[in-house]
């Protein structure tokens, strides 16, 4: 997917939430206010289009906390470029889901 492709508002919100450090599906839901039935299919689509990628948490961390490992999501380089293009299209995006200062630097 080219970086200048137009994202829907929902997809842009999800990218922004992941960019802001909300890397698990449920935390994306919490941050965007969208239901799970919207967030997860949208994340699958973004992953298929190469804007985000997923990884499993290390088993040792999950074992230490006696819980199953969770899957987390990160932006790809294309995803980052696409999000930056989306900021111009949706100027309020950063205000709705602010990016931590450390992340932006």
């Amino acid at each position, binding site marked *: 997917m080219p970086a200048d492709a137009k994202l829907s508002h929902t997809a842009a919100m999800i990218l922004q939430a992941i960019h802001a450090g909300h890397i*698990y*599906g*449920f935390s994306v*839901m*919490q941050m965007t*206010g*969208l*239901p*799970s*039935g*919207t*967030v*997860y*299919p949208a994340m*699958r*689509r973004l992953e*298929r289009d190469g804007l985000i990628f997923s990884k499993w948490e290390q088993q040792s961390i999950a074992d230490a906390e006696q*819980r*199953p*490992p*969770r*899957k987390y999501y990160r932006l790809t380089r294309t995803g980052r470029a696409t999000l930056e293009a989306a900021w111009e299209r949706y100027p309020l995006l950063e205000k709705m889901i602010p990016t931590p200062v450390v992340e932006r630097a």
Partner: protein
Amino acid sequence: MKRDRIAAARAYANVRAASLLVPRDKRAAWTAEWIAEIYHLSHASRADFADSPGASPLEFSRGVFPDAFWLRRDHLRTHGLPGLHAGSAGRCALILASLAATALFVCLIAPDARRALFPLHPARSADLVTISPAGYAGAESPGISLQEYLEWQADTEKLFSELSWYHPTVKNVALADEPSARLSIGLASANFLQLLRVPIPGDAPGSAEPTLVLTQSAWRTWYHSNPRIVGRSASIDGKPVRIAVLRDDNDPLPEAMQAWLLEDPAALQQFSPHARGFAFARIRSSAFPAPRGGVRIMFETRRGVTHVFDCVSLSWLAWQPTSNFLFALLLACLALPATTALPLGDYPRYRGRMVFRISARRWAFLALKLLLLLAVVYLASIALAWGPAWPASTSVFLQVIIAFSTLLFGFRWSLQDQRRRCPECLRRLSSPARVGQASCNFLSWNGTELFCVRGHGLLHIPELPTSWCSTQRWLCLDSSWRCLFPENCAASPELV
């Protein structure tokens, strides 16, 4: 606490149920991700998610279904249905089966087509005939006058064990507290339903009023299936009648009447003697054998008048759509060799590849295709010819024409389709290419070459049949050629 555990268990059950929709290669990872999130949600502090949407595990787990659906849809879009690729045998069979199902659906929703499709009723035994003044065509319109019926009642005792008559008409039925209903009514002799072996519920023998027997559909349409009208007195042209309702509409009644008014002989004699209607009879076995189709009868009444009429078997009439189709099938089979070549081509046993299993599969596919084609044509010809309310003779003519032309076209297509398929995987061959020129080859061939996209072989179709290449010929390729063909390129390790 117990409620939380139950909610979590239901959420896990949702995940397990939805995981069945997820493609198999992604199922384990997908299930693990959802279970981990639900576990996290169930064991985290409630205060963390107080204002979050979908904070309960059960509510959160409702998203598994849209997610699983999306994955399945995406998988189908990229991979297609298994075994149903473009040009595959499965897709061909599925299309034919869908056409047959559509034609069957049309037959079921069109009442006349449904009657033509499911004609049999136990009462329509071979001895039940309709009396026609002019052969089969005469059985379609009212041709027997009331006067003739009344005369024959006494004079045909040796021929028929029972004889009845009805005259189709349209009348207003007035019932107190109900709107007036305009119904198509058969004014029939009292023994009419008895002759057809149709029971009348609530029949009260000895009642002074004639009985108006409503069909289930008329009862439902005009009286909303009101059980209180049964047995009540209604009025037709100011004459009182008692209402009864047939148990079901799956009866052997010959015409699509909404009601039957059963009149005793004395009341029938008050009608015009020239009123024309349909007569039905049961043949006395001692008189003559029940006819297969129809039989012409001549007899003399006591007054010395000679009558000639035809007895047309109702069971034969009921099987007419099937016999028409079989007739069209016979004609199509006879005409087929004149319109296309029948051989399917030359498939040699090349290097042991054309083993019995492959050959049997090819023939089984051809047989399945032909069977589905017969079903499609049979059902479609009934739906088109008998669905609309045309006269029976028109329907017969139309059905034969439709069935013959469609069968001929269908058989030609089946054979041509079979010749253009790979004998191993049964997929349509692709990429036709011209090979050679008629004036520039010597003991070679010129024509068209097609190949199987999976690399099973090449099909050579000669443009001009010669003594050394008279018919299309299949050339098997061994597996070393496979990597050159489109479907195998991605999977071939040599090309990566």
